[in-house]
């Protein structure tokens, strides 16, 4: 019999035919009889007192069913929106957040009223008739100014704008003195908007007779929503069902619960009608949590021979007007500030700052792109100061022995950093590129080569580490495998696929473990009424390393039971039973076999072994022993037009190592998307607020720049495989890798290109107008002078 395995097979995503042919079912594709549309009236101001709300005209408008404000919602909602400790256990302050404003609005877009109407058009029209009288207050928009003693406060009556200030490891002045060269750099991580194709949306139906609530929601973690929403509405989990059907992208912004996630179900309860709200693109840019929004002050030192001595990073995080549920997760940038390298000392401090903007929260990579960015920038600056090749300084200082415990006590499970660097350099033709660069410089061509040797912590993640971070619930993962009498299999998982391809990869794992045909396995997720009691959702590149392992573990429980039953059927001892390619036989007589399906059928019959229950199904919770640590090296090649500041991204090479691979095509797809998103931050995306008025200036896709496929070269991918010792499958995560690595690869390439002009650092997004200005300043011309070089 030919040995076939599904694990590692490059098979097409089975969800794609449905999704690309428009058959996907998103929140807006669902409705309920009698459903009304909800429109949200939002604060146009960043900071103001709400003096009065006049709903008279709106209430009389055609089709209007109800208008609700704060005073109505307090009848059915209690408590405040959740804020977890994450990486900062003690906050200086975390302003309590109710899903709708009462007397004060603290960011543009904060809900002040909702309108329910028979159609979305009527709801939208009527929402324009609500008259809110505001008294504007000074808005705190600037991160630096927010911390000044005389700064106005984000919330009236607050002592200041400090959310947290935590030093993980202080300086070590003695070690700092050992460095021969020291560099300093201030790095901006601009706010960016996680722009998934499907915006947020909620549909809720409350049944008064039995007190049950069903909510359809575009979410990455429906079980957490159920937990939190149940608390807010006083509905136990067994009466509250959250369904996240197909979800058109999340990127981290659909983990935490939002105001509307509470307001829509609450409005359904108040009105007795099913209620639907679908976020518009402008609402999305304005009110869905933003990513990044940080400033880093970095200092690093090395010896003359290139040996790294110390790195010190201070993170200032623009938290927005309230703490996002996982805002402090982004402080993990501090814990990975040392990157892939041996340093004698790493110092890190995080400062969370409140501003009158929408909260920030995890966005693809969350903290890890920032860590890679600051570390890899520092490494390049040190290389520049030492006149060393950037590849050489990396090679010289890589961590080479594993497991490796970093300065913060985190244990890197496995790695082979130099191997990935070598492969990336080989694909790039590094030596040749350097020659081209040298030649080009003589002709006024500004070619730049940027390296990014990245590492990542993911696979959240051990119960002991994560329960304190969430405030109680350990981030393990659950799975249930059900084998039906005729041998078809249903797998229920607590992770949530919104682009990751779980429908394909998880059945690949089950097919190998059970030895049943891949096509006989169905994956189900995203409905809290199905499968295990709790699921933990998808974020932090955890699904395979934690959820995949839960699937594997549950499948093995099935095999164990089936083996016992097969032994009974063969009248043999259990130890003597072999299981191979979905067939049981007695060792030594492989010609007499029982297929898995036969055993499954028998499990529903009579005459089972003493004490064995009928049926063939199993639930497993998997608690990993550690995080997993993917890594790799990316190389970007750019040419900068010195006359216009335009960056031409000529090539992009990505070598990634995520341990064993379940499906190479899906891994490549994750890298493609991630790389594009990181490049996009480096060159295009930026949320801009007017610092005076607090108004967002990037409220549509005309102003908020998202690149299209046209703007990217074909990515050149390579792969090394270093299995993780943390789990039996040897897998790590790959969902965020591309984003973690790529922004700094591009920025390092631009800095490299402009090095001959004496430009040391370039911030994101490296837009042509900014680069042109920097080039002007560097070449001594005033910015209104003639052309750059002439």
């Amino acid at each position, binding site marked *: 019999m030919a040995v076939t395995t599904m694990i590692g097979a490059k098979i097409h995503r089975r969800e794609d035919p449905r999704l690309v042919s428009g058959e996907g079912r998103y929140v807006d594709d669902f409705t309920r009889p009698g459903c009304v549309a909800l429109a949200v009236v939002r604060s146009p101001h960043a900071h103001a007192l709400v003096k009065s709300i006049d709903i008279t005209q709106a209430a009389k408008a055609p089709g209007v069913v109800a208008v609700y404000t704060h005073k109505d919602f307090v009848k059915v909602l209690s408590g405040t929106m959740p804020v977890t400790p994450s990486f900062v256990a003690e906050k200086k302050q975390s302003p309590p957040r109710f899903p709708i404003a009462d007397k004060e609005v603290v960011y543009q877009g904060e809900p002040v009223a909702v309108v329910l109407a028979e159609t*979305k*058009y009527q709801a*939208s*029209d009527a929402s*324009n008739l609500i008259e809110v009288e505001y008294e504007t207050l000074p808005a705190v928009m600037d991160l630096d100014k927010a911390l000044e003693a005389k700064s106005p406060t984000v919330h009236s009556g607050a002592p200041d704008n400090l959310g947290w200030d935590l030093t993980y490891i202080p300086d070590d002045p003695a070690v700092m003195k050992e460095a021969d060269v020291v560099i300093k750099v201030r790095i901006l991580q601009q706010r960016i908007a996680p722009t998934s194709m499907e915006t947020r949306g909620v549909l809720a139906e409350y049944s008064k007779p039995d007190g049950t609530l069903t909510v359809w929601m575009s979410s990455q973690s429906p079980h957490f929503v159920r937990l939190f929403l149940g608390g807010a509405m006083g509905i136990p989990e067994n009466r509250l069902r959250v369904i996240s059907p197909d979800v058109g992208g999340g990127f981290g912004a659909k983990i935490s619960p939002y105001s509307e996630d509470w307001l829509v179900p609450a409005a359904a309860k108040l009105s007795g009608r099913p209620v639907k709200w679908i976020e*518009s*693109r*402008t609402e999305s840019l304005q009110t869905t949590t933003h990513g990044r929004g940080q400033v880093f002050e970095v200092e690093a030192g090395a010896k003359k021979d290139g040996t790294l001595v110390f790195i010190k990073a201070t993170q200032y995080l623009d938290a927005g007007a309230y703490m996002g549920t996982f805002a402090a997760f982004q402080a993990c940038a501090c814990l990975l500030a040392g990157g892939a390298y041996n340093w004698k000392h790493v110092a890190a401090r995080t400062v969370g700052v409140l501003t009158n903007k929408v909260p920030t929260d995890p966005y693809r990579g969350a903290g890890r792109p920032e860590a890679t960015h600051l570390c890899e920038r520092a490494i390049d600056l040190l290389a520049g100061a030492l006149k060393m090749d950037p590849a050489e300084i990396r090679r010289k200082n890589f961590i080479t022995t594993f497991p490796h415990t970093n300065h913060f006590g985190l244990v890197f499970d496995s790695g082979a950093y130099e191997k990935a660097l070598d492969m990336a350099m080989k694909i790039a033709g590094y030596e040749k590129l350097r020659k081209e660069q040298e030649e080009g410089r003589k002709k006024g061509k500004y070619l730049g080569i940027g390296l990014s040797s990245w590492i990542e912590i993911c696979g959240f993640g051990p119960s002991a580490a994560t329960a304190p971070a969430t405030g109680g619930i350990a981030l393990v993962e659950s799975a249930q495998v059900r084998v039906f009498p005729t041998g078809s299999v249903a797998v229920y998982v607590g992770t949530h696929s919104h682009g990751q391809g779980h429908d394909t990869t998880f059945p690949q794992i089950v097919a190998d473990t059970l030895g049943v045909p891949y096509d006989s396995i169905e994956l189900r997720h995203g409905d809290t009424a199905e499968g295990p009691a709790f699921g933990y959702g998808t974020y932090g590149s955890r699904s395979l390393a934690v959820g995949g392992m839960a699937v594997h573990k549950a499948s093995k429980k099935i095999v164990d039971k089936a083996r016992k039953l097969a032994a009974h059927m063969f009248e043999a001892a259990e130890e003597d039973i072999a299981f191979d390619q979905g067939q049981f036989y007695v060792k030594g007589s492989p010609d007499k076999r029982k297929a898995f399906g036969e055993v499954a059928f028998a499990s529903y019959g009579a005459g089972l072994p003493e004490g064995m229950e009928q049926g063939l199904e199993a639930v497993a919770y998997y608690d990993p022993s550690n995080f997993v640590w993917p890594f790799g090296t990316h190389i970007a090649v750019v040419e900068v037009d010195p*006359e*216009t500041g*335009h960056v031409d991204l000529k090539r992009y090479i990505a070598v990634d190592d995520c341990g064993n691979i379940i499906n190479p095509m899906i891994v490549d797809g994750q890298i493609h998307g991630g790389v594009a998103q990181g490049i996009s931050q480096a060159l*295009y995306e930026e949320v*801009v607020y007017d610092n005076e008025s607090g108004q967002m*200036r*990037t409220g*549509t896709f*005309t*102003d908020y*720049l998202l*690149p*299209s496929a*046209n*703007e990217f070269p074909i990515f050149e991918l390579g792969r090394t495989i270093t299995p993780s010792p943390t789990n039996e499958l040897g897998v790590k995560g790959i969902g965020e890798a591309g984003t973690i690595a790529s922004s700094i690869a591009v920025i390092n390439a631009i800095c490299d290109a402009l090095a001959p002009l004496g430009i040391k650092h370039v911030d994101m997004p490296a*837009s*042509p*107008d900014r680069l*042109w*200005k920097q080039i002007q300043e560097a070449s001594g011309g005033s*910015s*209104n002078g*003639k*052309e750059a070089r002439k």
Partner: protein
Amino acid sequence: MIPAAFEYARASSVEEAVKLLKNYGEDAKVLAGGHSLIPLMRLRLAQPSALVDINGIKGLDQIKESGGKLHIGALARHVSIHNSQVVKDKLPLLAEVAAEVGDNQIRNMGTIGGVVAHADAAGDYPTIALMLDADIVTNKRTIAAKDFFKDIFTTPLAADEIVTEIVFPVANGPHKYIKFRRRLFDWAIVGAAAQKMDGGWRIGLTNVGPTPVRAKAVEEALHKGAKPEEAAQHASDGLNPSGDLRASPEYKKHLARVLTKRAIEQAG
């Protein structure tokens, strides 16, 4: 992102459209490709009381040469202008410009009449119309391009006036349009056009002010024998562009000079 309520009617002739516009009154608007108007309505920045759809008017998309001029019907889509053999032969610059407008969806829907009537400062055709002294023909009159683009989003068109065609001179000498933008489908941050015509150069600029600009100082310098690089220094003479998220006024002026130089040098 939901427009305010409006009436809708579809016209099958220019006369009918004009009559409908008259009946609906001041707040009615013509609907052509909808790729400028509908986004504005969705943001409720435009709230017309009625739309008079002209897409059903036969022949309004005609492209032809007649009397030594190139006539482009107001309803001609960007994609048709780009693909038209007549345009390629008689005014290849225009065919090239059409290929640079927006993305496929926009080129399939958007019309030249819509761009001209909308008079967005970043519109590409207005630059070409202005620098080549094109005429804008309506159901009432013929207006020279230099009298048409008076301010941003502002034209002499009356509420019941419909653009029927744009009439360009024939010019098939060396030409080039360079559009500086962030993404392939974007509007110009700045655009520069160069066309050799009647023994001299015509130079036009996009998005360096509220209206398109004809860079006469550059044309004159070239006429006097200046090298492209020297002449292009005059591209920013008298410009006073406003800054936006993508470019400061200084940067726009700088781009005007650089792109003008490149357009002249690359004109072929």
